[in-house]
């Protein structure tokens, strides 16, 4: 059954528009609340990416690529890893060993807090970018 474009998925489009902000918000919550509850960079990255994938499914790949272009994704993929490894290099510059966050602040606990924050953010950025890239790669080949 072929529907006319205007009638196609109207309900899905409206619901998607309502849902996406909450998905993104939940992704941020999982990212930055991972210290206190279940979650962390990996899960947050997947949740964050799923919002973009949902957008791509409902509104078509063109629109999503206009929001989040493959060039930006490639940049994000590398920058997440660099943020992680860079944190390790900074701890070495401060006189510690690789990824020893104690030296990042005067109080070792604060240092650990900052280190884990940076590292999880790096994981989240890379996972988001890779997941959306996988989706683009599969969905744009036809």
């Amino acid at each position, binding site marked *: *059954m072929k*529907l006319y*474009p*205007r009638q*196609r*998925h*109207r309900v899905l489009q409206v619901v998607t*528009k309502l849902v996406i902000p909450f998905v993104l918000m939940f992704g941020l919550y*999982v990212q930055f609340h*991972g*210290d*206190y509850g*279940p*979650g*962390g960079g*990996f*899960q947050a990255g*997947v949740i964050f*990416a*799923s919002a973009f*994938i949902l957008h*791509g*499914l*409902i*509104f*078509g*790949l*063109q*629109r999503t*690529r*206009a929001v989040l*272009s*493959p060039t930006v994704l*490639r940049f994000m*993929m*590398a920058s*997440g*890893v660099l943020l*992680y490894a860079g944190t*390790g290099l900074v701890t070495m510059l401060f006189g510690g060993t690789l*990824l020893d*966050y104690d030296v990042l602040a005067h109080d070792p606990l604060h240092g650990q807090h900052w*280190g*884990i924050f940076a*590292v*999880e953010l*790096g*994981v989240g950025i*890379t*996972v988001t970018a*890779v997941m959306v*890239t*996988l*989706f683009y*790669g*599969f*969905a*744009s*080949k*036809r």
Partner: protein
Amino acid sequence: MDTFIIIVLLTFLAIIAIGIIVLRDLLGAVILLGAYSLTAASAFVVMDAVDVAFTEAAVGSGVSTILFLGALSFTKHEQKPRGHDSWLALVFVVVTGGLLIYGTLDMPHFGSAISAAQTHPDLAVRFLEQSGAEVGPPNIVTSVLASYRGYDTLGETLVVFAAGVAVLSLLGLKRRRPEDDAPEHAPGDTPAPDSDDFLAERAE
């Protein structure tokens, strides 16, 4: 009670797995794979592995279902019926499965007192008792993952990055075309019929 729930969930897992094997409709099999992951995630929750359950639910039943659907759009939705059954394949699968089951016999039972986590109490007890003072976060999983084993997690992130690079180099993304930057419709409008609309192709 926990044992009962686990038995029910594992029975579901077995039924879903058999369903995936039997089903000739690939679209249905992909959806069942998502259901399989969700059931597995529920089992992880019952085992108090909330972080693992979270990952399983998000990756297993969320993103990989979508990726399988994307892969399906390259091919047909029906599995090709095979005229003959390969006995060699059956023997191979039975032998491999038997070896795997034989391997699990050496593993300690769930929650067993002789599991590695219990026989090396210096590690588990140290993480449980000292991580609050040494690292801070109340979620000990985060402490272990990001701080005690930060080096391993760096490796995992590199693996994810490598997967992304591999997909980029194998499938490749189309170069940015001018029409990508400026959709010809107003935002909120339905896309043109000839656009690469994912759901539309599935529905037809």
